[in-house]
């Protein structure tokens, strides 16, 4: 009897887990929601103004270790591929704007860092875990998303970037 109850509970849990995974929304294949944010240098940048170029948008948080690891890798990608038509944009989602700016300045990456202290953009992009990396093609459609970062992931990004740059 206990086994039957346990098995039933497990299967129910699995079903719920699978359903929640299946229901996880994705923006791949959809038009990238537009946003305009202020950058570290005080200039405002709008995503839709980069239409015609391949754009890598990286949402990051200062408190997240993976984000710290990822930024130097994205910096190398930006330096190598910006002349080929790639635009890398970092978006900080930290609420503490001052500390976030200090951190971004200390990282001194070659690509623009923008600051989002609201919640609207996070909702538009279904942000759940940091860092989140998004590739937008030349026509403004999201083609690839990646959550989290491990060493070697930059090679996967590069495969997608090269493919999009060839289009």
């Amino acid at each position: 009897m206990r086994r039957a109850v346990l098995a039933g509970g497990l299967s129910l849990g699995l079903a719920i887990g699978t359903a929640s995974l299946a229901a996880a929304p994705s923006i791949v294949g959809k038009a990238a929601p537009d946003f305009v944010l202020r950058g570290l240098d005080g200039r405002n940048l709008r995503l839709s103004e980069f239409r015609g170029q391949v754009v890598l948008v990286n949402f990051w948080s200062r408190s997240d270790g993976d984000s710290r690891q990822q930024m130097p890798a994205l910096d190398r990608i930006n330096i190598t591929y910006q002349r080929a038509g790639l635009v890398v944009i970092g978006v900080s989602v930290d609420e503490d704007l001052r500390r976030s700016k200090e951190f971004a300045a200390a990282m001194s990456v070659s690509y623009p860092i923008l600051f989002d202290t609201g919640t609207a953009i996070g909702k538009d992009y279904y942000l759940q875990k940091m860092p989140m990396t998004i590739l937008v093609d030349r026509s403004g459609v999201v083609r690839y998303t990646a959550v989290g970062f491990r060493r070697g992931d930059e090679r996967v990004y590069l495969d997608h970037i090269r493919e999009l740059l060839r289009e």
Partner: protein
Amino acid sequence: MNLKHRIVSIAVCAVMLSAGMAIGQTPPPADAQAAPPAETPPPPAPDAPPPELKTLDQEVQGLKKDVVDLNKDLFVLQEELLFPANTQVALYISMDVGTFFALDSVTVKIDNKEVKNYLYTAREADALLKGGVQQIYLGNLKVGKHELVAFFTGKGPVERDYKRGATINFDKGVGAKYLELKITDRVPKHQPEFMIKDWE
């Protein structure tokens, strides 16, 4: 009730239009196809596409035009439904010269409620400087007295951070209301000037 009727009529129009397009696409009856031509057509030029392809292309072009027209009509109807003329308030922004002010953002409050906060990129600010006029807000307001406050932030003379406000009290009548935020240079004082113009 009136709104419901309008929505239903739009839906009926859309269905009729699509049905009309579908009828337009149906091939002619078999008798018409089978009937021999009265005169033998001249032989086509060697490089010219076959006549079937040409007519098909014309049909596709016609359908595309119908879709564009339908889309335009639906957009106009949507605007009319969402922002009917008797409650519509449209706010525009323009910039003249801009020697003493580099626009960064505009915040608009109507009756002490923030309705718009817009950050300008360098390209957008340039477009305004070149004579562009931007519709910054479109909304609905009841008939009566209202207050609009606009805050402009940017770089003022000598690259200093600059924030100024402008206020207007206006009467919203039965028709649509058009207001314009104007940024101009006040040359004698070497300062920018912010005005709100009520287009009667």
